[in-house]
């Protein structure tokens, strides 16, 4: 259905092609998963399927891309619309209509389908994607998971034979991600749609794939059986890394496969090493904090303590009030009631440039804080504002990212690099508490590992860190303590292992496989007796 024949593509004004010599064939009704580190050209590969690359981006393409018998060289993007449904990485950025129903109908209107047919298909897709209750909702009022399902539904109504999805679950909480993936697999199984999908969090999807397409940083592509490709993949979910550690072959891809082999591994394990949770003095104490928008409460009477040197993960589904809580704690956001005290001071009573010396927040969209012409200028401005010696921010940045060209424009940085830059700017103010809102979006395993190490290092210097995240593996890796929010209230607050191991939604893969207090592959490696 999709065939790439010796395809090489380079963006304009670059020295290095984004993808090199790709030979790829995806058969009808198959689910192919595109994996690879950040910036390796996964999105580029996906956009070639309907011709957005190179028609929308420019650049030179050699070789042939043929989809459903149509060569993208001969057909415009619009002409591929009835054949290929493309769902971009940020679904909300592609919305064209006002309400869910109109959005679902847009493609069909452009294709000129009969109104009767349109009406029927919209109803079918509303049911298939579980959107019936949202039909007249405005698109701007949807939660992340709802928006993602609407975006998929909006291309489904045109009955495309090929669906292309760019990281469909990256912004979703674990439960919403399951829901979206379930709908995608239902399409493959029941409707016979061919799906090409990129995803960072392989632990969520790799077991559903018929084929894995691996791209490395040089743009070379290797495609094949999932278990075979994952043997050598530069990115691997915890279950695969566990399999590699234990020397299992063929590699298990799902928790279920791994659990069958687990007893042999368990025999070789000592008791898990308890994590040293450093309990310093309490630096932040929040009592009875609530946030109300209009007449809908987002945070209801939350009490929370953060100790110096502690890393806390704040989890909960989309819309549970995590962001609102972080903003209220920092003082820049709305707080309708309650008290916050950081080292005896309420940050909301301070001027913003003083408050950030007590509590620093790295928001959901780090690029909102970047406005200078170059990375070097950002750092100089931050040092001047922080009153810290010149080079402080640059030094932090180097520890976060390694060497980076100070003349680069902030807009040209990847999401992960922007996050690191904002974190460096905020750390320059030497805050007592650092809050991060969803920092791992769009990061590969290596980048997440690096961030995790850094956060522990920052905490090690006596700062309290709280991270709102959907990423259970990241939370398991990083946090001493997990706080779970639901409907604006705290429903669990305990040691990481105590919260996540017992929860079917929040348990990391390793805990699911080994049914014990091991949370990460590193934990297992540390307690593995030499064979």
């Amino acid at each position: 259905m999709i065939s790439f024949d010796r395809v090489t593509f380079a963006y304009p004004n670059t020295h290095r092609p984004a993808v090199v010599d790709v030979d790829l064939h995806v058969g009808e009704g198959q689910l192919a998963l595109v994996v690879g580190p950040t910036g390796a050209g996964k999105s580029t590969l996906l956009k070639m399927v309907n011709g957005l690359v190179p028609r929308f981006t420019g650049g030179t393409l050699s070789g042939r891309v043929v989809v459903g018998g149509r060569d993208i060289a001969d057909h415009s993007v619009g002409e591929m619309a009835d054949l290929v449904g493309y769902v971009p990485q940020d679904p909300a950025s592609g919305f064209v209509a006002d309400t869910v129903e109109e959005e679902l109908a847009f493609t069909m209107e452009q294709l000129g389908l009969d109104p009767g047919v349109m009406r029927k298909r919209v109803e079918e897709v509303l049911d298939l994607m579980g959107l019936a209750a949202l039909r007249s909702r405005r698109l701007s009022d949807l939660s992340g998971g709802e928006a993602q399902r609407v975006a998929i539904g909006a291309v489904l109504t045109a009955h495309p034979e090929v669906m292309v999805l760019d990281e469909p679950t990256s912004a979703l909480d674990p439960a919403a991600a399951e829901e979206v993936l379930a709908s995608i697999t239902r399409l493959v199984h029941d409707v016979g749609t061919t799906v090409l999908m990129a995803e960072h969090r392989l632990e969520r999807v790799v077991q559903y794939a018929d084929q894995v397409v691996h791209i490395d940083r040089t743009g070379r592509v290797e495609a094949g059986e999932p278990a075979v490709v994952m043997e050598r993949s530069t990115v691997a979910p915890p279950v695969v890394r566990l399999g590699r550690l234990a020397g299992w072959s063929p590699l298990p891809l799902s928790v279920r496969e791994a659990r069958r082999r687990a007893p042999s591994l368990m025999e070789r394990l000592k008791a898990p090493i308890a994590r040293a949770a450093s309990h310093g003095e309490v630096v932040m104490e929040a009592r009875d904090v609530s946030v109300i928008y209009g007449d809908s409460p987002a945070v209801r009477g939350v009490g929370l303590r953060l100790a110096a040197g502690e890393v806390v993960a704040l989890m909960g589904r989309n819309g549970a009030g995590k962001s609102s809580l972080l903003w209220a704690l920092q003082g820049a956001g709305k707080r309708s009631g309650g008290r916050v005290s950081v080292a005896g001071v309420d940050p909301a009573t301070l001027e913003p440039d003083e408050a950030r010396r007590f509590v620093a927040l790295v928001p959901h969209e780090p690029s909102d804080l970047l406005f200078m012409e170059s990375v070097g200028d950002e750092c100089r401005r931050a040092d001047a504002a922080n009153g810290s010696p010149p080079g402080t921010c640059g030094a932090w940045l180097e520890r976060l990212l390694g060497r980076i060209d100070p003349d680069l424009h902030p807009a040209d940085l990847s999401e992960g690099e922007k996050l690191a830059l904002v974190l460096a700017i905020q750390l320059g103010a030497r805050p007592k508490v650092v809050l991060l809102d969803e920092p791992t979006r769009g990061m590969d395993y290596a980048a997440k590992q690096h961030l995790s190490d850094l956060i522990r290092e920052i905490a090690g210097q006596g700062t309290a860190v709280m991270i709102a995240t959907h990423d259970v593996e990241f939370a398991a890796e990083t946090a001493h303590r997990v706080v779970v929010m639901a409907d604006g209230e705290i429903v669990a607050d305990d040691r990481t292992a105590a919260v996540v191991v017992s929860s079917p939604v929040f348990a990391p893969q390793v805990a699911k496989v080994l049914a014990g207090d091991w949370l990460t592959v590193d934990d297992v490696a540390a307690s593995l007796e030499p064979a």
Partner: protein
Amino acid sequence: MTRQLPRRLHAGAWWLWALGLMAVATQTTNPLLLGLVVAVAGVVVASRRGGAAWASGYRAYLVVAAVVVAIRIFFRTLFGGGAGPDVLFHLPRLSIPGGLSVGGPVTAQQVLAGLYDGFRLAAILVCVGAANTLADPRRLARSLPAALTGVATSVVVALSMAPQLVESFARIRRARKLRGETGRGWRSLRPLLVPLAEETIHRAVSLAASMEGRGYGRSTPANRRWGAVASGGLALVAAGSFWLVSGSQLLPAGATLATGALFVLVGLAGAGRENHRTRYRADRWERQEWLVGLSGVAAAAGVYMTGALTPGILLPQLDPLTWPQLTPLAAISVLIAAIPAVAAPPVPAMPNLRSIPETAP
């Protein structure tokens, strides 16, 4: 009698009705008649507006209308130059080189002229507001003739973008505090405008890609030719109407207008035949739409007849001062436009399902 089924009226019907009322307002400075127009618009809005977000702006239109009246009176008082015999009071006079003067005697005539004039403008504004409140402007764009769907889609998308821009602005303004950037003056704009511009451009590009990827703009060359015919016709119509209003040569002006209209019709019909797009759940034009639209037209026609029969009614005299009058014909004509308050179908209840936004507003 069967109960009326709640449904959304065709947006065009409301606009036709509002245009009728606006035509009434432009013809007269009679404050009684204008007051009647505003009252009629208010009654219809109160009984037939929906609960959607776009329908909540009526109050803003009323406020702007009141401000317009106040400004009009203020300027007439200040710069009126004391036209008319009935002096109310004196303002200190200030002469400006070049023959202009500010202040001096203030007459009842100039204040009333300001009031009447401002009230006329205010009534027109209220009518526009009523149409905007009763009919979703997006639905109107969606109901444009098939040949214009390309343009209409762009307009609809642009209208959807505007509130997003406001949201981004609020979000970035709040984020600025996190960096301690709360200075005043020009330099403090940079932390606001740079991220906003970046986000807007980024969003525009991804929106364009998304629209293209979903088949927008698959137009054929024939389609574009018909579009050109229609646009040419539209230009002729504009030129013709301008000529007609300037009033000197009625015959050639009328001919230009008619030719233009013909071109527009031919272009739209041709493009409509060639067009391969369709519309999902298009608004229907039924009996009630005729009723609503024609009630506005009837009001305009009745007031026009009033002007022909009794010209003094529409433009009340100021010198000597007289109390404005109404004739039964004028009053009843305007009241006809209130029929939609009961005759238009009731608005379907909006399910109130707003969820808490994920990133706090």
